[in-house]
């Protein structure tokens, strides 16, 4: 830049501009200098060299038919020829096989087709669940302590999962007796003709779903 060329007025204006430029440059530079001091401050950190492992638990639920000879039908072996008044007891071991305790166990039931067995809350199938502190015998006897897990519910009601009274600590196995009853609604079979809406001669396939939720979260100081 040549500031010696031009009239006085031009020189005067250029001088002011130059001064503004110098001041602005100084201000920016000063600011940068001050700002840079933040990044030049010393820092220190500490990192653990051992431990510090964090693992999450697991939530698992498993069912299996009883292994006691004579009562291994579980939910596998078909039930045929039920008569009104019949109760079929099946035996299932339900295990919370994860590492987390669980809460709110439920049992739901779904049947194929729309037969009276599952669509009629009175004439249809009824289910009761009991637990034995030890394995059930093949005569249906509990030599330990029997507890009611679910009072009588119709298959219709169990389309909505029903609450169970169960111990759900991690690793705990329940010895369940599932009692499936066909109520004895009186039907009169006259001259070999089944009455309308009969409970006889029907078939459905039942799918049993046990479910549970993880325990509530906890805060631990350790």
């Amino acid at each position, binding site marked *: 830049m040549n500031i010696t060329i031009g009239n006085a007025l031009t020189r005067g204006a250029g001088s002011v501009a130059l001064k503004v430029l110098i001041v602005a440059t100084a201000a920016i530079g000063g600011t940068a200098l001050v700002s840079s001091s933040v990044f030049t401050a010393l820092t220190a950190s500490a990192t653990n060299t051992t431990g510090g492992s964090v693992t999450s638990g697991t939530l698992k*639920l498993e069912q299996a038919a009883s292994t006691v000879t*004579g009562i291994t039908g579980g939910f596998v072996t078909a039930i045929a*020829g*039920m008569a009104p008044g019949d109760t079929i007891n099946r035996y299932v071991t339900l295990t919370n096989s994860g590492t987390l305790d669980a809460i709110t166990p439920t049992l739901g039931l779904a049947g194929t087709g729309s037969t009276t*067995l599952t669509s009629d809350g009175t004439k249809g199938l009824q289910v009761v669940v009991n637990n034995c502190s030890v394995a059930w015998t093949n005569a249906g006897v509990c030599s330990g302590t029997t507890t009611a897990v679910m009072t009588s519910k119709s298959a219709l009601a169990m389309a909505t999962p029903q609450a169970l009274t169960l111990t759900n600590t991690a690793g705990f196995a329940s010895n369940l007796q599932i009692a499936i009853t066909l109520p004895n609604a009186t039907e009169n079979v006259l*001259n070999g003709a089944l009455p309308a809406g009969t409970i006889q001669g029907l078939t459905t*396939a039942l799918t049993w*779903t046990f479910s549970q939720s993880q325990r509530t979260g906890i805060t631990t100081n350790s």
Partner: protein
Amino acid sequence: MRKSTRVFFTSILGVALVAPIQTSPAVAAITAATVSPALSVGTGTVQVFGSSTQTFTNPSPAPLLLGPLENKDRSLFYAQNNGTISTPAFNVTISLTDSSTITSVKRCDVGVLFIAAGVCASGSATAIPMTPGVVATISSLMAPNTFYNLELITEKKTTATIDLSVLTSQLGTRTINS
């Protein structure tokens, strides 16, 4: 864009942003489930009927008509079960025309035929007290595809209408561990 339109889209955006935040605590809990195989459950049938011949095919779900029966002549009929369930008892009602009365009703053991008046091929005939028009219960087990041979003798010439029935309440109760 009109103000109402802006408000509408702003509301939609707000719901989209806020809703997941509000519901996230509810869906955060883990659940575990175990589902069984499909368990087939079937009910049986108990179907007792009467017929003039021994067959396990029900000719008609209607009363059995016998007659005209001559007085003091014996007439045979069969009570049969072509269902799939055993019944420990069944009911017989015999109605007669012409004010006739029943002289006797007898049966042989299950599956045994009469070979002469009051004489069974094996075992002995069992008398069944009966009154016309009144239900009589025969407490004898009748399994599926089995029959009883019955003998009816009336006092006068008549036509008999015979109804056979089973109430499911007669099946009793049973518990099976399996």
